[in-house]
C-alpha cells in the first residue's frame, strides 16, 4: 500500500460495541480501519461478530457505542439508505433477493428510476409522490445490462430470481451494489454457496473491482480466501478484534491460531478403520425432491460397520434427498435401501428409527429440534413413545422424572453447556443445540448414523468434539454416513469418500489417495480423466 505520510482510510470504525437483545455481546470495543482501495479480509469463526460489525457499517444494525467514519467524515447511519448514499454496498450471506421478482425489480428496489419526462427536476431520490410515477423499467434494464457487460457479469435482467442458479443470484447481488455506485463493497461469506468454478469467477470479478479502485471487505471463516485475495487481514474472535496483519507477514497457521485462540490440529486423531459387514446397502436409488425434480439418480452405495463413508459434494447435488430417503422422510421412486440385509425402503421415519438408524439432520432447527421445547423434552423426541420415557398402560403417559434423569446423564456425557435442562432449546448456542441432537441420536445405540452437515456453523471446539464422537462410534462398530459441504471435514474424518454430483456418485476415493484439488474438480462435475486440468483454489 502507498504509505505517503498520511494514509487515506475508506472506513474507520472506532470502539464499536454491540449487544443484542437477549444479551449476546457480538462486538466488544472494536476499532478497525480499512484503507482506500485495499482488499481487507475479515476472518473469524462463526459467531465471532464479523457479520454484525459489517451490518453496523451498512446501517442495517444499530451500534451501542462507537464512531463510524467514511472517508474521514463521521456518519450516523440510521438505515442502509444512509450507507448506500455514501457508497457502501453489501452482499449479504443470505442474499437479500426476492424470489418471485425479476432481476431488474430486485436491483432497483429502493432506488427506482421513474420516467424522466414525468419527473419534477428537483427530485433526485424517488420519494413520496414521485414514488407513484411509473418506473422506467426499460431504462433500468439497459443500465443493468451495461453494468453487467462492463464487469463481465452476464445476466438476463428479465429473469426471475427463483429461476436462476445461486451463482447467478450472487451476481445479481453484486450488480445491485454496482447499480448503487458502491465503491466500498462488503461481501459476507461470498463463497459458501458457490461451486469451485463459480468461486474462480468471483475472484476474477473481485480482482477487477480492485483494479477499478474499489475498496473490498471480504468476510470469511475460510483461511484460504483472504490468503489469496486480501492485502490485509483482520481477525475477530468472540466479538473482539484480535489483530490486523499484512498478508505477506502471516501464514495460515498464524491466522488459525488467532481465530481459535490456540494452536489448531487440522486433522482428526483417529486410528485405522476396522470395517465389518455391510450395514447399509443402497441399490439403484432414485429420489425426487419436493418439487418433483429427480435429485438422486440411481445411486449405489455400501457402508460397512465400523467405517465412516463421507459424501463430498456442492450443496444441492442430491445429498439432502439421499439422506432423507434413507431416513424415511422422502419416498424413493426406484431402488432399494437395505439395512443389515433387511429392506427398509418406504418405511416411515419412526420405523426406520426403530430399525436402528439415527439421523443428525442438516437443518437442526427444522428437523432436529423443537426450539420452543425444553432440552429434556427435545432429548426424548423420537423415543418418547417407548420405555423408559413412556409408562403406564399402552405407554400413553410420559415418565418425566425418568426423562430428566436420562437428559442429565446426556448433558454430562456430552458436556453440553446448559443452565437447566428445563430451559428452552432456543436459549442454547448453536454448538450446544447440535450437541443435544448428537447426544439424543447417538444414545439410541444406532447401527447406522446419518450425519448431515453435523458441524455446520459450529466453532472449532464443538466441531472437534463432534468429530471425535463420530470416530468413537465408528470404533464401537457403527456404520456412519457423513455428508458435508466442508471438504476439510470430509477428508479428515472419512475412511472412504464418495463424490456426489448431479444426483450421482461420480467417484469413490480413499482419503490418503486423493487431494482437495481432485475432489474439488469431481464435485464441480469434471470427469476423472480431466483431473490434470488447472487446479481450483
Amino acid at each position, binding site marked *: 500500500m502507498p504509505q505517503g505520510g498520511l494514509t487515506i482510510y475508506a472506513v474507520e470504525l472506532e470502539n464499536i460495541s454491540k449487544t*443484542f*437483545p437477549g444479551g449476546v455481546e457480538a462486538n466488544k470495543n472494536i476499532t478497525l480501519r480499512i484503507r482506500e482501495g485495499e482488499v481487507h479480509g475479515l476472518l473469524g469463526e462463526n459467531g465471532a461478530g464479523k457479520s454484525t460489525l459489517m451490518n453496523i457499517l*451498512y446501517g442495517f444494525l444499530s451500534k451501542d457505542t462507537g464512531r463510524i467514519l467514511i472517508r474521514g467524515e463521521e456518519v450516523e447511519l440510521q438505515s*442502509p439508505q444512509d450507507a448506500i448514499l455514501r457508497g457502501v454496498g453489501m452482499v449479504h*450471506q443470505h442474499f437479500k*433477493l426476492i424470489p418471485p421478482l425479476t432481476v431488474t*425489480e430486485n436491483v432497483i*428496489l*429502493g432506488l427506482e428510476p421513474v420516467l424522466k419526462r414525468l419527473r419534477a427536476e428537483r427530485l433526485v431520490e424517488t420519494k413520496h409522490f414521485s414514488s407513484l410515477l411509473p418506473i422506467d423499467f426499460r431504462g433500468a434494464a439497459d443500465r443493468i445490462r451495461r453494468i453487467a457487460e462492463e464487469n463481465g457479469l452476464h445476466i438476463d435482467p428479465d429473469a426471475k430470481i427463483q429461476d436462476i442458479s445461486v451463482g447467478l443470484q450472487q451476481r445479481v447481488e453484486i450488480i445491485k451494489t454496482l447499480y448503487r455506485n458502491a465503491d466500498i463493497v462488503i461481501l459476507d461469506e461470498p463463497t459458501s454457496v458457490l461451486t469451485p468454478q463459480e468461486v474462480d469467477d468471483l475472484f476474477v470479478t473481485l480482482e477487477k473491482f480492485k483494479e477499478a479502485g474499489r475498496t473490498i471487505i471480504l468476510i470469511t471463516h475460510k483461511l484460504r480466501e483472504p490468503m489469496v485475495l486480501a492485502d490485509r487481514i483482520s481477525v475477530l474472535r468472540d466479538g473482539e478484534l484480535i489483530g490486523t496483519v499484512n498478508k505477506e507477514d502471516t501464514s495460515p497457521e498464524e491466522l488459525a491460531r488467532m481465530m481459535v485462540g490456540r494452536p489448531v490440529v487440522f486433522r482428526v486423531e483417529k486410528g485405522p478403520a476396522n470395517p465389518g459387514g455391510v450395514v447399509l446397502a443402497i441399490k439403484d436409488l432414485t429420489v425426487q425432491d419436493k418439487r418433483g425434480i429427480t435429485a438422486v439418480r440411481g445411486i449405489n452405495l455400501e457402508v460397512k460397520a465400523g467405517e465412516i463413508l463421507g459424501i463430498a459434494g456442492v450443496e444441492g447435488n442430491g445429498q439432502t434427498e439421499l439422506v432423507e430417503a434413507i431416513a424415511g422422510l422422502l419416498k424413493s421412486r426406484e431402488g432399494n435401501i437395505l439395512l443389515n440385509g433387511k429392506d427398509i425402503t418406504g418405511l416411515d421415519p419412526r420405523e426406520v428409527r426403530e430399525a436402528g438408524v439415527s439421523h443428525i439432520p442438516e437443518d437442526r432447527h427444522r428437523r432436529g429440534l423443537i426450539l420452543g421445547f425444553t432440552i429434556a423434552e427435545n432429548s426424548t423426541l423420537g423415543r418418547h413413545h417407548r420405555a423408559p420415557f413412556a409408562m403406564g398402560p399402552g405407554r400413553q403417559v410420559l415418565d418425566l422424572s425418568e426423562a430428566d434423569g436420562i437428559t442429565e446423564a446426556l448433558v454430562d456425557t456430552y458436556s453440553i453447556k446448559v443452565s437447566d435442562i428445563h430451559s428452552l432449546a432456543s436459549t442454547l448456542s448453536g454448538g450446544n443445540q447440535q450437541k443435544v441432537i448428537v447426544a439424543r441420536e447417538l444414545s439410541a445405540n444406532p447401527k447406522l448414523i446419518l450425519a448431515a452437515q453435523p458441524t455446520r456453523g459450529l466453532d472449532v471446539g464443538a466441531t472437534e468434539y463432534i468429530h471425535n464422537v463420530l470416530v468413537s462410534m465408528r470404533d464401537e462398530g457403527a456404520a456412519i454416513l457423513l455428508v458435508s459441504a466442508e471438504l476439510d471435514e470430509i477428508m479428515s474424518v472419512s475412511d472412504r469418500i464418495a463424490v456426489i454430483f448431479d444426483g450421482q456418485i461420480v467417484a469413490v476415493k480413499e482419503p490418503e489417495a486423493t487431494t482437495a484439488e481432485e475432489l474439488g474438480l469431481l464435485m464441480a462435475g469434471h470427469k476423472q480423466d480431466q483431473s490434470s486440468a488447472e487446479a481450483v483454489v
Partner: protein
Amino acid sequence: MQTGDPMLELMGWLLKATLQMATPLVLTALGGMFSERTGVVNIGLEGMMLVGAFSAVAGTYYVGSPWLGLIIAVIAGGALAGAHAIVCVKFKGNHIVSGTGIILFGLGSTTLGLQVVWGKQGLSDSVERIPEVVIPQLRDVPMLGTAFGSLSPIIYFMFIITALSWYVLYRTPFGLRMRAAGEDPSTLDAAGVSVEWTRIVGVVLSGALAGLGGAYLSIGFENAFGKGMTAGKGFIALAALIFGNWTPIGCFLAGLFFGFVTGLQFIFPILIPELVTLTNLVKILPYALVIVALAGIRRSIPPKGIAVPYEKEVRV
C-alpha cells in the same frame, strides 16, 4: 322503462345486480390486497366497511353533501386501519387479534353511533344518496339500458380503482416496495426503505378502500345506515382477495363472480317460481357457491412475509 323481451330484461337486470353486489366486494378486496401484499393480515375489513358505511351517512347527515360524506367515510376507514397498522406494525401485535378487535369495534361503535346521532337502534334517518350517473342515450336500449342506464358513480370508481391498483402495484416504485415488504421485509430494509412506513401506508390504504366499499352500501346503494348492514361482506371480500390470489385483477374478477352469485338469488325465484317458498335456502346459495369455489381452486400463494412482524435488531 321499455318493455322489451323479458328474458333480455332479466339478463340486463342480473348484470346490474352483479355490478351492484360486486362493487363493495371488489373495493374492499382491493383494500385488503394493499394491506396483505405489504405483509399485514387484515381480517378487520368487515369492521372498516361498517365504520365507512356509518360515517358516510353520519357525514352526509351533518354536512348535507353525500360527496363529503363519501370522503369522510374514506378518511374514517383509513383512520380505523391506522389503528390496526399501529398495533401490528409499530407494536408488532398479533394481526388476527387486532383484526378481531377492529371488527368488534366497528360493530359496537356504529351501533352506539346510531343511538347517539339519531337516537335509534336499528336504522338511521334517510339521507341524500350519491346521485346516480344516468346515460339517457342508453336508457332505451334493451338489456344494456337496464344494466348501465343508471348506475352509482362508485361503480365506475370501482373500475378505475382496479386499474389504478394494478398500475400502482406493478408499475410504480411504491408498488414494488409494497410487494417487497410482503415477501421479504428484511430485503426491503437492506435496500434502504422503511418497512414500517411501507406497511403502514398499505394498511391505511386498505381501510380507506374498505371505507369506500362500506359507503357504497349506505349512500350509494341504500340511503341510510342499518345496524350491521355489511352482513359479512367484509369476509366475502377477504375470500375474494384469497380467491383472486392477492392480485388486483384477481380481486376484481373474484368480486364480480361473488357479486354475480349474489345477484342470482334474486333471479332464481323469478325463473323458478317453486323456489319462492324456499327463500332462505336460496339465500344460502351464494355463500355455498363461495365455499365450493374456494375449495375448488388451485392453491393460492400468499405473500411470504405475511403476518410476520419485522424485527430489525436480530442477529443475522
